[in-house]
């Protein structure tokens, strides 16, 4: 029996922007996600990293069909999600959940913590009184039973995030999409929440898709990593390989840009500085989308889009002149 839990193939999501440009009404297409493919095995963590405009957040939401993909397929436990109707999808939703970035907006301020945690079970029609389950979940995430009667505003950011995790666990999902789950938290609190994710995974065996821009945290928690740029995956492979031997220039530049908390290393490092800003996903560069900022760009990069190719160290990257 296959250990593959999720398979994404050629996922595409385009957004339409209605722009009023004076007299003319132009319809602009934002190519948020273009031909993204990857898979996630049971109990595994896939890190999805990228900067703004990379499309990583959109990928997360497309997987859960919170946003409808434009094309491509998302297969979960063998079922093609795009072909499912509302009721069938709802049944599958029990198995895939999401934890959001903003601990302040992810909980309804008018509902008690207990009510928020119970909501998944209520919506899914799970019968019975759920108060025991609520206590169990609260304690699982490191909070206490008497928190159930309180309201979100009484808790700190880290605690609210734990409540969000408790809610995501309510239906025992097999896959949880973690959308920048620790970015909004204080540094000293982040570690505790990351440990919680790891503990839960070793206890309950679910898979994670960990979406983040913080490469250090991803390095710590992910088994495999996919690096995204302007809607495409530019590199994907084992975490160790990608971090130690990046083959795509963007990955290299990204790793080089992350400041490490070690003055000696930082001052001695040779940093690759990228010129300019991330181009707009409305009009991505032709061929390789990274070429406008790449120091290795040649003519072929504008004419021909590089495909993901396996490299000697095991990972795949999309570049005509990969790093070695």
């Amino acid at each position, binding site marked *: 029996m296959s250990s593959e839990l999720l398979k994404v193939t050629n996922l595409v999501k385009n957004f339409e922007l209605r722009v009023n440009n004076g007299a003319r009404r132009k319809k602009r297409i934002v190519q948020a996600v273009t031909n993204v493919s990857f898979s996630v095995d049971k109990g595994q963590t896939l890190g999805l990293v990228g900067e703004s405009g990379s499309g990583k957040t959109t990928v997360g*939401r497309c997987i*859960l069909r*919170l946003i409808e993909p434009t094309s491509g397929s998302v297969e979960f436990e063998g079922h093609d999600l795009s072909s499912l109707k509302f009721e069938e*999808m*709802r*049944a599958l*939703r*029990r198995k895939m*959940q*999401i934890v*959001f*970035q*903003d601990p*302040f*907006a*992810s*909980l*309804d*301020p*008018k509902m008690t913590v207990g009510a*928020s945690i119970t*909501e*998944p079970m209520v*919506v*899914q029609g799970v019968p019975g009184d759920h108060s025991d389950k609520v206590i169990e979940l609260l304690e699982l995430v490191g909070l206490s039973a008497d*928190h159930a*009667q*309180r*309201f*979100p*505003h*009484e*808790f*700190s950011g880290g*605690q609210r995030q734990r409540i*969000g995790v408790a*809610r995501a666990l309510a*239906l025992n999902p097999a896959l949880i999409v973690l959308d920048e789950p620790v970015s909004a938290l204080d540094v000293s609190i982040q570690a505790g929440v990351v440990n919680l994710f790891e503990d839960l995974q070793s206890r309950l065996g679910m898979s994670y898709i960990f979406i983040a821009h913080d490469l250090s945290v991803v390095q710590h928690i992910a088994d495999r990593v996919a690096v995204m740029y302007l809607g495409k995956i530019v590199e994907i492979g084992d975490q160790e390989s990608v971090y130690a031997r990046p083959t795509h220039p963007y990955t290299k530049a990204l790793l080089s840009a992350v400041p490490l908390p070690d003055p000696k290393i930082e001052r001695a490092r040779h940093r690759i500085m990228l010129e300019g800003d991330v181009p707009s996903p409305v009009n991505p560069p032709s061929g390789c989308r990274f070429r406008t900022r790449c120091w290795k760009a040649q003519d072929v990069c504008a004419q021909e889009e590089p495909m993901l190719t396996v490299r000697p160290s095991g990972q795949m990257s999309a570049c005509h002149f990969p790093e070695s």
Partner: protein
Amino acid sequence: MSKQESTVLSPRQMAFRRFVSHKAAVASCIIIGLLTLFIVLAPLTARYGVNESVQAPPNSFLTPRAKSWLGTDDIGRDLYSRLIYGVRVSLLIGLASAIISVTLGALVGAVAGFRGGKFDDIMMRVTDLFLAFPFLVTLLVVRNVLGALPWLRPITGDMSSVRFIIVLFGLFGWMGVARIVRGQVLSLKEREFVEAARAVGASRRYIITRHLLPNSVGPIMVALTFSVVGAIIGESTLAFFGYGPQAGDGATSLGILVGAAKGAVQTGYWWLAVFPCLVLIVIALSINFIGDALRDATDPRLDRGV
């Protein structure tokens, strides 16, 4: 251990506390409360009947004195008593039409905001259409048109009846509320707790009723108070021009009493102008203060906590 060791305060309790810190609003609540008491206990609090003449003509105009606290009108009716009955009618009109228009507006706004797309566009253009007409002119025209339709009579009553006016204001007062609620729904719709509900498979109806409407209660309540004021003043304006609710038996409304001020100013019977207008101002101001305080108290930004 949570952030604050103090007692558990629900959002409702916090809102209440914020409301109570507005002194003007609290005073207004007391005033309106007393007023309501007066008019509810009307036969007790009024000194005379609404059509009862205290001083037969001629010389029926009495200045304020012991016999008639606020003076009398041309038929010798006690102004104080008539004010009590009149305010009762006006408050009834205000409240009833506000409930109708807010319910209508909230529904339109919530559905338009939530569905979005073409539906939203159409609803908003309809709203704009209603808003485009000058209020009073429209009222007068619609009044005469609707009033002439015999098959509407059973629902709305006669053109001059109170019921008709309530329906009229209800039908033309919903637009502002619709816009407010739509705005609120639009901003709430993208919040992550709504996405979380969708992620567990919640239906549209569940999301609107369980998440969007409870979080819109604040703006809806504020809209309600301002609708009440709008209706009361609107009724007064209509009455001023002679189109107010009339009934043969001398029943009156605040608007009619204010309308009578027109003539009183010229003839020098000042009490007939001053007191009704004062009452109208006090009521309108009080409700406005309450509405302002409600708006501050239910400000959703404050739901984040200290």
